[in-house]
């Protein structure tokens, strides 16, 4: 019996021991830690994004455990860096494909006709030639414009190929089918021959309408006479029933005998002459109802042509390289170049883009990739993780290098080059790979990359994303509060940081947004204090005189006042509006200062821990887990110089990661 008792006591002790061990290591009444192979699969999928191979399973089976050195080895593989890039792509939402606006107005495309010149074919063709999609005359060389005549009856005896400043003039003209009903005159070879003959609808071309005979190209590029009259089927032109005759009894215009406000009063016959807007020399426009085409020139190939040819045919307007209108001195470095006949695409067509859109897509891909390369470099070099928010280092490929260095396609890509031309690596357009370089002093990690600035286009959205991604905080009014009724006078407060109902969030958002105050909204431009001072006296003078546009040069300044603060801020950079003296350093310090402030709170570290926890465990930390893990993980992360790999290793080593819900 004593022996039985002794044995029973051993058995009892064993039960207690086994029960405790079981609870600790294997099971909390339902939640089990996973077996070795399954855990290996879990680690592989979480760390390098793929399951183990059969050989890798067998290797770990042989070892019997996954050791820290195995995890470290995994985190040295390219697959790990690729996985981490994917994680940060999601964190930064690095895709600007829907954030940048382009309808292809600056794209140079060609057709198979004639000399096959490159030229605009989209909306830009309308102010330059008279119709959306109209190209230049692909059969006439601009500077030999008198060697061929498309419409002898519409053209002068001697055509003017260029004006006094060398701006190309039209070399041929067609009636615009948006206004005219043009029909082929059957059985005629030219317009002289066509008089007295019927067109396809039975209209006989009267001699008095000889100026309305238009030699037009058919699909086979042959010229045939067409009879064009104001289109009676269209409301705008149906009322043009009165014919105006010249001294020879020929019709030179159709007019509306009873024009009403908004209707088209008159359409003159088409010639090669351009209109001059408001009598200002150099501001050309196309005759209404006409398509006035310039010719072709041979010019240097555009920057995206890497075929090595010496010259390419290009429409004479697009082939120009001026920086300003030679008559008005208006700049060609804005979107207005697309409607200014004297501007053109610039040297090597830098202002324009490839017609296929491939280069545009490559630029988007490169901009999306840049912050991920930056982050990859920080993690690869085991640097402090938060360097990704402050470093001046970045990476550039051929597409971005040439865009920054040569100011390419600068009316679509409103991006300030990150550093001077000389300091920007000169990577050929089609060269593979990325080069590391250092951006100017204002750069602050990913927070000033075009990817971030375009993806989050306003100061408020940049703050919101920064808080969400890096501080794990989200803006929402306190629960239980109601917005004041619409008729409440407090709704008329213009400063959102003070407006009732808005101030819960905007009291933080507005001053924090000032950290991006020197970055434009809906673009990626840096408003350099040297070019954009806090107060621009010229803008202020314009504003005070009621000229709120100020020749479109004061878009970043307060030009209208809606309250007392606005009146006191006229002529100030917009970001300074409503900012207090305490908040103005935010504008000067930029995003880098914001990161420095947040580092002192510890929120950045806690959020990074929480984010990686969420990524690895597939759910946020619970309240209990925050008590158990957050402090120790954060302290370890800090002690290990914010090394992301060490943080991942720490979380992979937690009991929570070893178990499955």
């Amino acid at each position, binding site marked *: 019996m004593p022996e039985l*008792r002794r044995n*029973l*006591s051993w*058995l*009892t*002790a064993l*039960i*207690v*021991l086994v*029960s*405790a*061990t079981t*609870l*600790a290591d294997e099971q*909390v*009444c*339902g*939640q089990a*830690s996973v*077996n070795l*192979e*399954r855990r*290996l*699969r*879990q680690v592989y*999928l979480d760390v390098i*994004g*793929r*399951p*183990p*191979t*059969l050989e890798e*399973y067998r290797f770990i089976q042989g070892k019997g455990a996954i050791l820290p050195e195995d995890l470290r080895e995994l985190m040295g593989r390219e697959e790990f860096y690729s996985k981490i890039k*994917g994680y940060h*792509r*999601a964190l930064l*939402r*690095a*895709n*600007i*494909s*829907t*954030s940048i606006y382009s309808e292809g107005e600056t794209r140079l495309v060609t057709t198979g006709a004639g000399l096959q010149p490159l030229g605009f074919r989209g909306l830009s063709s309308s102010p330059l030639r008279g119709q959306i999609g109209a190209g230049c005359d692909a059969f006439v060389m601009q500077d030999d414009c008198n060697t061929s005549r498309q419409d002898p009856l519409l053209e002068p005896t001697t055509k003017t190929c260029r004006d006094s400043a060398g701006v190309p003039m039209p070399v041929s003209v067609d009636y615009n089918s948006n206004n005219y009903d043009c029909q082929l005159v059957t059985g005629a070879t030219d317009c002289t021959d066509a008089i007295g003959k019927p067109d396809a609808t039975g209209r006989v071309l009267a001699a008095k309408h000889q100026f309305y005979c238009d030699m037009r190209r058919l699909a086979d590029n042959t010229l045939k006479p067409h009879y064009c009259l104001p289109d009676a089927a269209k409301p705008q032109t149906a009322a043009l029933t009165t014919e105006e005759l010249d001294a020879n009894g020929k019709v030179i215009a159709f007019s509306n005998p009873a024009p009403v406000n908004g209707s088209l009063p008159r359409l003159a016959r088409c010639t090669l002459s351009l209109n001059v807007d408001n009598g200002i020399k150099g501001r050309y426009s196309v005759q209404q109802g006409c398509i006035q085409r310039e010719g072709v020139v041979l010019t240097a190939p555009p920057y995206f042509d890497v075929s090595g040819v010496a010259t390419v045919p290009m429409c004479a307007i697009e082939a120009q390289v001026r920086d300003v209108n030679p008559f008005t001195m208006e700049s060609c470095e804005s979107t207005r170049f697309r409607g200014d006949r004297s501007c053109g695409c610039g040297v090597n067509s830098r202002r324009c883009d490839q017609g296929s859109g491939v280069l545009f897509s490559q630029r988007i891909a490169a901009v999306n990739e840049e912050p991920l390369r930056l982050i990859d470099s920080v993690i690869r070099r085991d640097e402090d993780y938060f360097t990704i928010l402050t470093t001046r280092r970045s990476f550039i490929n051929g597409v971005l290098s040439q865009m920054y260095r040569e100011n390419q396609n600068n009316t679509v890509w409103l991006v300030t080059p990150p550093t001077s031309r000389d300091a920007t690596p000169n990577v050929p357009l089609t060269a593979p790979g990325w080069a590391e370089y250092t951006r100017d002093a204002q750069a602050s990690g990913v927070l000033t990359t075009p990817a971030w600035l375009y993806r989050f286009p306003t100061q408020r959205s940049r703050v919101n994303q920064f808080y969400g991604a890096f501080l794990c905080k989200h803006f929402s009014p306190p629960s239980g509060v109601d917005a004041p009724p619409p008729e409440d006078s407090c709704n008329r407060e213009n400063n959102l940081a003070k407006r009732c109902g808005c101030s819960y969030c905007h009291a933080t958002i507005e001053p924090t947004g000032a950290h991006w105050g020197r970055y434009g909204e809906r673009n990626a431009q840096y408003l350099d204090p040297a070019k954009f001072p806090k107060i621009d006296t010229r803008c202020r003078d314009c504003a005070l005189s009621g000229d709120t546009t100020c020749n479109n040069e004061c878009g970043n300044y307060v030009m209208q006042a809606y309250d007392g603060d606005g009146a006191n801020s006229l002529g100030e950079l917009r970001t300074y509006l409503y900012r207090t003296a305490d908040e103005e350093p935010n504008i000067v310090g930029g995003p880098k200062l914001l990161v420095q402030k947040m580092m002192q709170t510890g929120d950045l570290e806690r959020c990074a821990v929480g984010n990686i926890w969420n990524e*690895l*465990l*597939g*759910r946020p930390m*619970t*309240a*209990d*887990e925050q*008590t*158990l893990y957050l402090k120790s993980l954060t302290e370890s992360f800090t002690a290990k110089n914010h090394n992301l790999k060490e943080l991942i290793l720490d979380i992979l080593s937690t*009991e*929570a*990661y*070893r*178990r*499955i*819900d």
Partner: protein
Amino acid sequence: MKRIFLLSVMTFLAACSSKKTVADQTGTLEPVDMSAHPPMVRLPDPENNAGHVGRAPRRLTVAQLKQSIAVTTGSQWSQIDNLAASLGQADFALTVSDSNEANLVFAKFLEDGAREVCLKVAVADLGRAQSARVLWPDIANTEAGTKGNDFTLVPDASIKKNLSTLSLRFWGQPMSDGELTAWTTTFKPIAARAKVANKPEQAWGAMCIAMMTDPRFITY
């Protein structure tokens, strides 16, 4: 002694019935001295953590699925990139987070993908040496008839060994004995049907499809 035994049993039962760790039971008993035992890790109470105590099981992302198919079969589903958005892949412009929902759309498309990939791999395996085979690496040619493709002749032990390898490869979880028996029972009529149809690749191809559409493949 009886008292000690009773208390010990109560400790064991109380631990499970209350779903709490031993560490939470301090002060209720005179515990056995365990000072020599390695320190135990405290775990959160699942009842206070919405049932959580470890990783949340989840469906593979599209990127992980793509890699998993490639690593597991050595082949790729030709439509995975075209269907990525439907399978839940975010573009981070219009859709800002990957969907891990194992919904019917995902299941339907994955079944299509499994059929494509598995039959392609099975056909290729028919022409491969045993060491290079993906779907029946543990079956010698001599075990499958004169042409090496009559899987009705393969002994149960070899079928089980091969299924065990496949389950490790596809799921990271070797089948238990009971499951091996069940799957072997399933395999035999499939192999017979494949033989009758003169499509020997369908025998192990069907097993591959079953494993690729199993929750253990698409979740982790």
